[in-house]
């Protein structure tokens, strides 16, 4: 789960990493006192907030109020806004910890070219990226802090603050089961304070059972359907086409998504019908229908998830929900003969080949019969 900037900064603050002085304004709240000049930062998930006008600057309180109001009540409809003091920037640093799956290490990446996108930096100036690894079972050792901070060119008090910030970032990385902790930029101010001016924090969804401080909120999702499906534990992704996919397994889904595009169609959404969801056809179809696709394409090739159980679920769902759009099925695997039988009874032809199913769905979405 990706946290909002303000949540990342809450964690930073709790572990002793300095953040700019600021206030968070939620939906109905009034403005409190702010430090001027200030930065007005929309708390939204999308990237490129600066270019999209979702970050604004103000020198006066009035101006700040107006700009914040425009973000909150204008077309962007931003729900939470972070208003922070504007820092006097002497230097900007990039600092992040992520996962190296080959070496099973926490990979620290740092660069004295802060503010830039690290992926951009990796392409254009790979030599400018400082790397330091902490293997599984090991701790981040003091010498590693020194390696990074000397390589960044820090000195004196900024060096010490930098060491402490990295150590605390690492603690948070382990403690919160993070996939990514990023401070970009980490600012050194004119008066040698080292402050996390921005923050990214992604918590591993698989560790949710031991990381319950950050429950899912509507704000994290693009649509109500995605949020509600996620609360039900059903992976659901929204796209902008017209074919609703119910597939079992990420691998097969990726392949179907490719095939839909290959044959000239467009996917409306993807809903994970496999794993524990294979017995929840009614809910699954309900979510899919809410997105109003022109056709539903159901493709599975089941192992544990039995084809006959899925087919029966689909039959039940059709009976209950009475969808007015065509449904194409290719439900294969354990119990596929019985599955074919069940579907035949409700007038569906259960296809055997994936490509045939995809082609038919694409044709149906284009209005063919």
């Amino acid at each position, binding site marked *: 789960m990706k946290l909002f900037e303000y949540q990342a900064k809450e964690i930073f603050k709790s572990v002793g990493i300095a953040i700019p002085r600021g206030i968070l304004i939620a939906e109905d709240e009034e403005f409190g006192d702010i430090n001027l000049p200030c930065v007005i930062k929309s708390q939204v998930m999308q990237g490129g907030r600066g270019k999209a006008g979702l970050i604004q600057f103000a020198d006066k309180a009035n101006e700040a109020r107006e700009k914040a109001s425009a973000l909150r009540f204008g077309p962007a409809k931003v729900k939470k806004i972070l208003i922070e003091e504007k820092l006097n920037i002497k230097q900007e640093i990039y600092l992040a910890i992520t*996962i190296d799956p080959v070496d099973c290490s926490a990979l620290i990446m740092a660069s004295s070219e802060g503010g830039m996108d690290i992926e951009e930096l990796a392409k254009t100036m790979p030599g400018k990226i400082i790397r330091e690894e902490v293997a599984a079972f090991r701790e981040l050792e003091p010498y590693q802090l020194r390696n990074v901070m000397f390589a960044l060119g820090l000195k004196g008090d900024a060096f010490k603050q930098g060491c402490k910030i990295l150590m605390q970032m690492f603690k948070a990385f382990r403690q919160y089961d993070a996939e990514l902790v990023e401070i970009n930029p980490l600012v050194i101010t004119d008066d040698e304070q080292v402050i996390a001016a921005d923050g990214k924090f992604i918590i591993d969804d698989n560790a949710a059972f031991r990381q319950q401080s950050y429950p899912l909120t509507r704000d994290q999702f693009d649509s109500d359907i995605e949020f509600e499906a996620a609360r039900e534990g059903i992976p659901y992704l929204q796209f902008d086409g017209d074919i609703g996919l119910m597939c079992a397994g990420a691998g097969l889904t990726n392949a179907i998504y490719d*095939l839909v595009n290959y044959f000239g169609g467009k996917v409306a959404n993807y809903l994970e019908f496999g794993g524990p969801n294979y017995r929840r056809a009614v809910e699954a179809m309900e979510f899919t229908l809410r997105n109003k696709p022109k056709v539903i394409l159901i493709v599975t090739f*089941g192992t544990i998830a039995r084809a006959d159980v899925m087919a029966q679920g689909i039959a039940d769902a059709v009976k209950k929900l009475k969808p007015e759009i065509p449904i194409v099925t290719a439900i294969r695997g354990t119990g596929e003969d019985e599955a074919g039988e069940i579907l035949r009874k409700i007038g569906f032809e259960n296809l055997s080949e994936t490509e045939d199913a995809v082609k038919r769905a694409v044709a149906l979405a284009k209005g063919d019969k």
Partner: protein
Amino acid sequence: MSIFIEQDTRVLIQGITGSEGSFWTEHILGIGTNVVAGVTPGKEGQKVENVNVYNTVRKAVAETQADASVLFVPPRFAKDAVFEALDAGIKKIVVIAEGIPVHDAMQMRRAALSEGAMVVGGNTSGVITPGVAMMGIFPYWIERVYKQGNIGIMTRSGSLTNEVTAMVISEGFGVSSLMGIGGDSVPCTRFAEFLPLYEKDPETKALVMIGELGGTMEEEVAEAMEAGIFTKPLVSFIGGRTAPEGKKMGHAGAIVTGGKGTVAGKVKALEKAGALVADRPSVTGKLLKELING
């Protein structure tokens, strides 16, 4: 001969008394696997499908000389179960569980590497040598997929495996050994690390790799081919060519960020190394035929 699991491999089943464990124990025995023991803490003395259950792996190994283990334990206990098996000296471990925390997976892989053991998974259907044995959850009774033969299959995906393998079988081939490496972003064993096993397996004439967007595992296979570590014919299908950037399609393995791990990059690397890459599952078998027949 096969890879990873042989007819005489002495298989232990951890979590054997659970609903998944007992259900699959029946099928694992059904294919002919030499299951010698099961472990569930607190259930020593019970039997599942006539297999003796022990409280600890240490005791099970002491009494049955088990040398491989397949784990049917919930994801939050997978790490502990893997450590227990490694500590008892087991060098071949298959982890079925889906949803293992990535920090746990890093420790599992690291521990396996330092013990010189091979842990397959998590989030995998496991390993099967059709007609011989399996440590996993494959519906080997589906004949259009699990037919014995000479094509090795290695795969990051459960669901897509049946799809692609069916296409290989439909061209008249069969499967030597199928290794599901699992769909997680930190699999305990990576594609390229299986290549030496396939390379020396006389039953394997060619290899099909079912890859996916994200990560660098397919690129590592290309490197191994260029380095001469793997010299047999290889055909690959890689899902996620058109996947939108930054979206997770079901599991963590399948995500592209910042232009790294793109299917295009993987295809380029593999083709440069001499592999053929199918652009759709349906052509995988045909490409294999083309490559083998020259």
